[in-house]
């Protein structure tokens, strides 16, 4: 049962992401990426990371992608639709990507992972994923957590300085 859902989500992700990188219209690409993130949230739920799935939708789809759409609408992107879309080195990249993909496939085929370990809780139970994640995040990873907040602050200042119009006084 689970495996079919996984194939559905994985297939959807690969399809939408392939469509995403081939669109000429930027808004279409952004909307397709949102769809990819939905499928990704489904994969996260199947992997027992339901909190992360909600974070994926709330932050990525509902936050970052709306920011993208907002910025795209502020920019003048209609001209780019009629221009050449691909770099000249595209063919080389394609060949390299296919080769790398085959290599990963070959390597993964030889590795034996064995049966996964079990969580101490079942999916969707109340003392479960959220509590476990919080317990780890705010004890063992407290210092990286604070560093991440400083990173956010720095990028916020950077974004404001870069995007702000210089005012002549």
């Amino acid at each position, binding site marked *: 049962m689970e495996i079919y859902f996984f194939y559905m989500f994985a297939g959807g992700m690969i399809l939408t992401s392939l469509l995403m990188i081939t669109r000429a219209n*930027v808004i279409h690409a952004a909307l397709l990426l949102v769809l990819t993130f939905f499928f990704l949230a489904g994969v996260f739920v199947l992997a027992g990371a339901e909190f992360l799935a909600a*974070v994926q939708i709330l932050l990525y789809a509902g936050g*970052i992608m709306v920011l993208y759409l907002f910025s795209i609408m502020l920019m003048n992107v209609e001209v780019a639709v009629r221009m050449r879309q691909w*770099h000249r080195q595209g063919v080389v990249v394609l060949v390299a990507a296919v080769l790398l993909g085959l290599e990963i496939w070959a390597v993964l085929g030889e590795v034996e992972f064995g049966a*996964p370990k079990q969580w101490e809780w079942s999916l969707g139970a109340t003392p479960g994923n959220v509590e476990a994640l919080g317990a780890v995040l705010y004890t063992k990873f407290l210092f990286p957590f604070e560093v991440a907040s400083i990173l956010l602050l720095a990028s916020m200042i950077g974004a404001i300085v870069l995007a702000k119009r210089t005012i002549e006084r």
Partner: protein
Amino acid sequence: MIPMTHFLVLGAVLFLIGAMGVLMRRNAIIILLSIELMLNAVNVTFVGFSRHLADMTGQVFAIFVITVAACEAAVGLAILIALNRDRTMVNVDEINLLKW
């Protein structure tokens, strides 16, 4: 039960698609979107290992990756807006004023 290999293959394929998008497209916004896709491919691998080892560390790292992605989106879009204000350009190979 989903085998671990499936997560790794999915992550690898998405990462490759993202990398192809970054290297093949001229449009700067699509390149940023492809970078988001690559970051998410990494998340698939993290969460897959978190599932396999029954260890929360992978999910914590996925949260940090999302944080970094948010920072990257904000700064990247700010750069694009600044570029777009001075001169209408969205293609990365036209941004070559520093080239000597």
